[in-house]
């Protein structure tokens, strides 16, 4: 039964990983921006939930979902307008730049909300769980899975079915050509960054159900988020999904048989090993171009 239990646990860890990585499929996967402040946008989503709580009470989590999307998205938009836009094509510089931004945002959180954690109360319908053939299924984890799945579906539709998504991919693949084809590249950049950051905010809302809400939370999730995207293959949605679930399951079983530290080390080792086999992640964006 533990085996079955851990399967559900693995799926729910996978859902968390996927949620925190979804936004990166835009900013990192599409735009190639290694946004170290992504974690702080997650944090912004979490604190938004805390703020929303003051009027929405214990229904803060559902109410905060759209609000956090807008808040974190708005922060992303400002970041893009002020800074990131000067750095397209220089992903490694952006990394340092956004690292600076993340320091500032963390300190800002300490000054605005205090260093200690704050509390977000889960709505009644997201507390507890039920028993399914002896396996405990928690409502909050189910909620996160549902959120992750809808996020994936939404992004997939956006990328493949909407002209905005197509335009976005065009800009990311060949900025200059997009411009000379009449695409308003700066607006596409803004929208892309807005959505990617907004998704981080949504992840932040969900994370209040299971973890702390404090100035540090971004730093706890950022490495895992990047690993998921990299293991899946940059800009590859289905890669990210598979990677998140696989890493979640791997983590849950290894942790079951060993311990949390070792599980983390194993996950890293497996990713290194995996990239030996598939150097560009699960799904590869191939091209004939020379690099």
């Amino acid at each position, binding site marked *: 039964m533990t085996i079955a239990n851990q399967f559900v646990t693995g799926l729910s860890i996978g859902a968390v990983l996927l949620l925190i990585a979804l936004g990166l499929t835009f900013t990192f996967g599409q735009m190639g921006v290694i946004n170290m402040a992504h974690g702080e946008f997650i944090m912004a989503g979490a604190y938004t939930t805390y703020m929303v709580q003051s009027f929405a009470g214990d229904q803060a989590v559902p109410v905060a979902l759209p609000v956090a999307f807008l808040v974190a998205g708005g922060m992303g938009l400002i970041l893009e307008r002020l800074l990131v836009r000067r750095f397209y094509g220089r992903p490694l510089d952006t*990394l340092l730049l956004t690292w600076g931004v993340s320091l500032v945002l963390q300190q800002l959180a300490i000054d605005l909300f205090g260093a200690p954690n704050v509390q977000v109360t889960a709505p009644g319908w997201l507390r507890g769980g039920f028993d399914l053939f002896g396996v405990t299924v928690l409502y909050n984890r189910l909620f996160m899975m549902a959120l992750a799945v809808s996020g994936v579906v939404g992004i997939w539709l956006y990328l493949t079915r909407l002209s905005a998504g197509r335009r976005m991919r065009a800009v990311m693949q060949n900025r200059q050509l997009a411009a000379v084809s009449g695409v308003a590249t700066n607006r596409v950049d803004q929208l892309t960054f807005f959505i990617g950051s907004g998704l981080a905010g949504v992840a932040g809302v969900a994370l209040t159900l299971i973890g702390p809400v404090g100035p540090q939370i971004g730093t706890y999730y950022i490495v895992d988020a990047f*690993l998921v995207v990299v293991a899946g293959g940059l800009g590859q949605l289905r890669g990210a999904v598979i990677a998140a679930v696989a890493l979640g399951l791997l983590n849950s079983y290894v942790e079951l048989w060993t311990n949390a530290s070792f599980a983390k080390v194993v996950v890293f080792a497996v990713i290194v090993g995996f990239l030996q086999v598939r150097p560009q992640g699960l799904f590869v964006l191939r091209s004939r171009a020379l690099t």
Partner: protein
Amino acid sequence: MSAGLRRYAGPALFVAGFLVLALVMPNVLGPFRLQLLGKYLCFAVVAVGIAIAWGRGGMLTLGQGVFFGLGGYAMGMHLKLKEAGAAGLPDFMVWSGVDELPVLWKPFANPVFALAMVIVLPTAMAVLLGLLVFRQRVRGAYFAVLSQALAAAFVILLVGQQGLTGGTNGLTNIQYFFGLDLYEEANQRLIYLVTVVVLGVVFLLAWQLKESRFGKLLVAIRDGEDRVRYLGYDPAIVKTVAFAFSAALAGIAGALFVPVVGIISPAELGIVPSLAMLIGVAIGGRYSLAGAVVGAIVYNYAETSLSEAWPSGWKYLVGALFIAVMVWAPRGLAGLFESALSRFRRPAAPPPAAPVAVKEEVAA
């Protein structure tokens, strides 16, 4: 300005910088500040390696702390054994309930072995990783994130093995360095001077590497790894050599850090400190070795003095510093210096602009 002047300007600046560090600083700084400067110089050694691997070779290594740690722990283990108490056990083993010296520790009692390991361990690790990873053409963002994961995993491993490594604490309370009492001012000065000399030597080695054809080849690989294959070179080997070189420097720096600071702990090796090592280089200018050295010193100095000046909000200033440097001086202080210089120089024909955007290795 004559070409001759230009030719000798570099060496002259090097000698001047060296003399300032070796002769002037020990006489104008108090022991505490001198010790801090020594620490900055350790990071400058790391920075020189990063300037080669990243600035020249385009390998954004976010896990340099691992190599720093390997060197540091190799040195630390030796020094801890020298100071070990009655049972021949370092202090932390006693309070972690280890009764017998682990086999892994035994050879480190030998100073020659320990010193060799300072270089061998990080180099071997880098060669192993490099051959695996570069052969498979993992690069750009993939390499960056991978190396970051490596740093994270390394720290978790160290922390989890408290009896063997001292866990989160690391190796603390190191008081003697080959018989020298590290709290004696004269000895601190001596160790500082050793650091300066090591930095000087390392700098010259890196300079040679950078200016050689090997250095050009690295740049070529950064700009077009696949194209290089069709020139008949194996990029994996070339990159591995450069990566191993940077790892060896990080290891040496880690080993120097131990007597300079008296501690080596996972807190110095993880994701954040590894990034900090990079940031100094970015600030100074990754394309210039001197820039990297100056950047490492400036960044660490800024961190110290900003945190002293405004302990509760200094992260704002540090964050602002990165942002400012990236926005206004993407080629770092060295870039600012160069453009200032070229404004003075007024050449007959306008020098060619470097290709507009600073090209970087992107994913895929």
